[in-house]
C-alpha cells in the first residue's frame, strides 16, 4: 500500500525494544525513550504512519523529533507536477544516503577487511574498481558528445579530460602483485555487473542528462566516507600483506577532492530550471539502476571465490581455447571444445555449436511472472536492429541487418514499456552497444531470442519469424572467421549469456516510485 505524503517512508524501520524505541533510516539510528514515545499520542501516530509530520506539529513537543527525522530524509515528499533542480537535489540526498547504507552493508566488505575473502575475490574487487574507473571518462565523454545543455556539456567535456587517464595512473594494478601480465589485466573480461553498470551509465549519458548527473553525483559524493575508506584500505593492506598498496587510490581521492568533483556536480543542480515529475521519476530510476548494478558487483566478486591463494582471471577466449583452467569466464560444466576446430572458422557453425554447448543448454526455469519483461525485451531488440542497420556498411551486413530489422519489428510488441527486472535492461544495453559491429550484434540478438524462447510468440508469427531469422543467419553462413574474430565472438556470447542468466534468476524489481518508498 502506498505511504501517504508527509508520513514516514516505508524504509524507515521502527523497533520497540524494552524501554527504547529505535528509528533507523539510511545511515542513522535514533533511539528514543519508550516512555516518552508512549506518552505522546502525536508521536505514536507519526511512528504508526497514521499521521503526517504536519499533523504531528500540532504537538509542540513533537517538533524537534520531526526536525531530526526531516534532516535524515525520513518523510515521503508531497508530489508535484514540476520540480526545480534544487528541489531534485534535496530530494536525492536522502535517497543517496540510503543507497550508501545498502551498499556498505554487503558482507563482502567485512570479509575483505578481515582477510576472510579469498585472494581471487580480492583480485576481482581490485579489477572491478579499475573497470569502473576506466568507464568514468568514457561515460562523461558520451554525455558531452550527445548532451544538449551548454553548461552541462562544458562540465562533462572537462570532466572527461580529467577522468580518462585515472584508470591508468591509479587503478591499473601492479601485475607482479597478481602474478599476471599487464595485458592480462587490461584484457580481463568485466564481471557481469561491471558490464551492466558501465553500459547502463553509457545509455543514461545518451538519453537522460539528469539521471547521468545524479549517478555521477552518487559516485563522487562517496568521498564523504574518505576517513572510513582510509581505515578500510589499511585493514585490507594488513590482512593481505600488501603494504601501501592503496596509496595511489588515496592519491586519486585527494585529486577528486581538490578538483571539486562532488561539489561541482552538486552545483550543476543549484538551479531554478524545472523538470517534470515524469522526468524526475525517470532520472531517479536510472540513478537507482546504477546503484543496483554497483551493489550487484559485490555479489559477482563474491562468486569469484576460490580456495587458498589460487587466482583464476576472467580472461577472454584466445585461440579458441575453451579450457576452464585457463579462464574463469567459462561456466561450470562447460563442454569440451569440438574436436574439429573448423567449427569456429564459420559464423553459422560457431553459433550452432555455442547454442548447444553443454553447461549453457541446460537453463533454469525462465520466467518469473512478476518480472515478465518479454514485451520490453522484444521491442528493445527491435530498436537495436535499426541502430545496427544504421552502422552497417558492407553489402552483406546491410542485407543481414535489414532482414533482422524486418523480422524483429514483426515480432515486437508495441509499447513494451520500461523493464521491471534490471537485468532485462542489462541484456538490452549489451545488445545495443554491440550495434556498432553488425556481425557481433547479429550473434547477440540471435542468442537473446534463442534464450528467450520463441514459444511465447503466437504460432503463426513464429513460423514466419523463424524462417526469416534463419534466412538472416543463413545469409552469413558463408562468412569465414579469423581465429581472433572467433575468439571475440565466443567471449561476447559468454558475456551476454551471463547477463541473460542473471535476468532469468534475479527477481528484485526496479522500484515503482523511489520518492515514496
Amino acid at each position, binding site marked *: 500500500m502506498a505511504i501517504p505524503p508527509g508520513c514516514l517512508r516505508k524504509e524507515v524501520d521502527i523497533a520497540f525494544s524494552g524501554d*527504547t524505541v529505535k528509528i*533507523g533510516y*539510511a*545511515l*542513522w*539510528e*535514533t*533511539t*528514543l*525513550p519508550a516512555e*516518552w514515545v508512549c506518552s505522546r499520542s502525536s508521536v505514536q501516530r507519526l511512528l504508526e504512519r497514521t499521521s503526517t509530520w*504536519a499533523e504531528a*506539529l*500540532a504537538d509542540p513537543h513533537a*517538533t*524537534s*523529533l520531526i*526536525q*531530526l527525522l526531516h*534532516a*535524515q*530524509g525520513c518523510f515521503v515528499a*508531497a508530489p508535484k507536477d514540476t520540480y526545480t533542480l534544487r528541489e531534485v537535489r534535496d530530494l536525492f*540526498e*536522502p535517497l*543517496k*544516503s540510503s543507497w*550508501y*547504507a545498502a*551498499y*556498505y*552493508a554487503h558482507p563482502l*566488505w567485512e570479509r*575483505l*577487511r578481515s582477510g576472510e575473502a579469498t585472494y581471487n575475490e580480492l583480485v576481482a574487487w581490485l579489477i572491478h*574498481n579499475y573497470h*569502473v*574507473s576506466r568507464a*568514468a571518462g568514457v561515460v562523461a565523454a558520451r554525455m558531452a558528445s550527445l548532451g544538449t545543455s551548454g553548461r552541462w556539456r562544458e562540465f562533462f567535456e572537462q570532466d572527461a579530460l580529467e*577522468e580518462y587517464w585515472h584508470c591508468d595512473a591509479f*587503478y591499473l594494478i601492479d601485475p607482479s602483485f597478481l602474478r599476471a601480465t599487464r595485458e592480462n589485466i587490461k584484457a580481463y573480461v568485466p564481471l557481469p555487473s561491471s558490464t551492466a553498470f558501465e553500459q547502463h551509465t553509457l545509455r543514461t549519458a545518451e538519453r537522460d542528462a539528469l539521471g547521468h548527473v545524479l549517478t*555521477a553525483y*552518487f*559516485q*563522487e*559524493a*562517496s*568521498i*564523504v*566516507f*574518505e576517513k*572510513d*575508506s582510509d581505515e*578500510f*584500505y589499511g585493514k585490507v593492506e594488513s590482512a593481505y600483506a600488501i603494504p601501501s598498496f592503496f596509496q595511489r*587510490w588515496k592519491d586519486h*581521492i585527494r585529486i*577528486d577532492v581538490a578538483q571539486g*568533483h562532488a561539489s561541482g556536480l552538486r552545483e550543476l543542480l543549484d538551479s531554478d530550471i524545472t523538470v517534470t515529475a515524469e522526468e524526475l521519476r525517470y532520472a531517479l530510476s536510472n540513478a537507482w539502476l546504477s546503484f543496483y548494478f*554497483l551493489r550487484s558487483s559485490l555479489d559477482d566478486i563474491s562468486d569469484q571465490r576460490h580456495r587458498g591463494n589460487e587466482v583464476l582471471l576472467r580472461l577472454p577466449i584466445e585461440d579458441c581455447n575453451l579450457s576452464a583452467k585457463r579462464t574463469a569466464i567459462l561456466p561450470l560444466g562447460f563442454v569440451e571444445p569440438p574436436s574439429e576446430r573448423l567449427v569456429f572458422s564459420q559464423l553459422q557453425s560457431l553459433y550452432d555449436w555455442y547454442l548447444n554447448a553443454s553447461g549453457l543448454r541446460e537453463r533454469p526455469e525462465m520466467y518469473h511472472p512478476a518480472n515478465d519483461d518479454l514485451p520490453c525485451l522484444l521491442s528493445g531488440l527491435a530498436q537495436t536492429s535499426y541502430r545496427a542497420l544504421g552502422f552497417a556498411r558492407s553489402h552483406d551486413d546491410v542485407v543481414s541487418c535489414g532482414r533482422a530489422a524486418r523480422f524483429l519489428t514483426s515480432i515486437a510488441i508495441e509499447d513494451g514499456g520500461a523493464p521491471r527486472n534490471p537485468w532485462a535492461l542489462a541484456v538490452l544495453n549489451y545488445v545495443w552497444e554491440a550495434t556498432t559491429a553488425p556481425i557481433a550484434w547479429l550473434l547477440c540478438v540471435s542468442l537473446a531470442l534463442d534464450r528467450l524462447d520463441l514459444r511465447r510468440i503466437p504460432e503463426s508469427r513464429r513460423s514466419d519469424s523463424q524462417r526469416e531469422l534463419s534466412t538472416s543467419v543463413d545469409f552469413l553462413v558463408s562468412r569465414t572467421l579469423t581465429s581472433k574474430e572467433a575468439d571475440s565472438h565466443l567471449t561476447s556470447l559468454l558475456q551476454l549469456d551471463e547477463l541473460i542468466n542473471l535476468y532469468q534468476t534475479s527477481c528484485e524489481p526496479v522500484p515503482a516510485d523511489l520518492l515514496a518508498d
Partner: protein
Amino acid sequence: MTTTKASQDTELVITAKGAEPITIRGALPSLHSDPKKIHQLLDLLEMPKGTEVKVITRAASVVVR
C-alpha cells in the same frame, strides 16, 4: 504547508496551515554531506532526555569514478 530557508546555515522555518510558524535557528548541517553531524544537530534540538543518535553505517572503499 510551506518550508522556507532564510539561510541554509542559520534558520529553518516551518509553517503548517493554521499553525504558528516554527523557527529553528543555528547551524543546520547537511547531514548527507557529513553524516556524523547528526550529533551537532541533536545538540540544537530539544529532544527528550535519553535520546541518542548514531551513524550505523561502517563505510569501506569510496565508490570509484
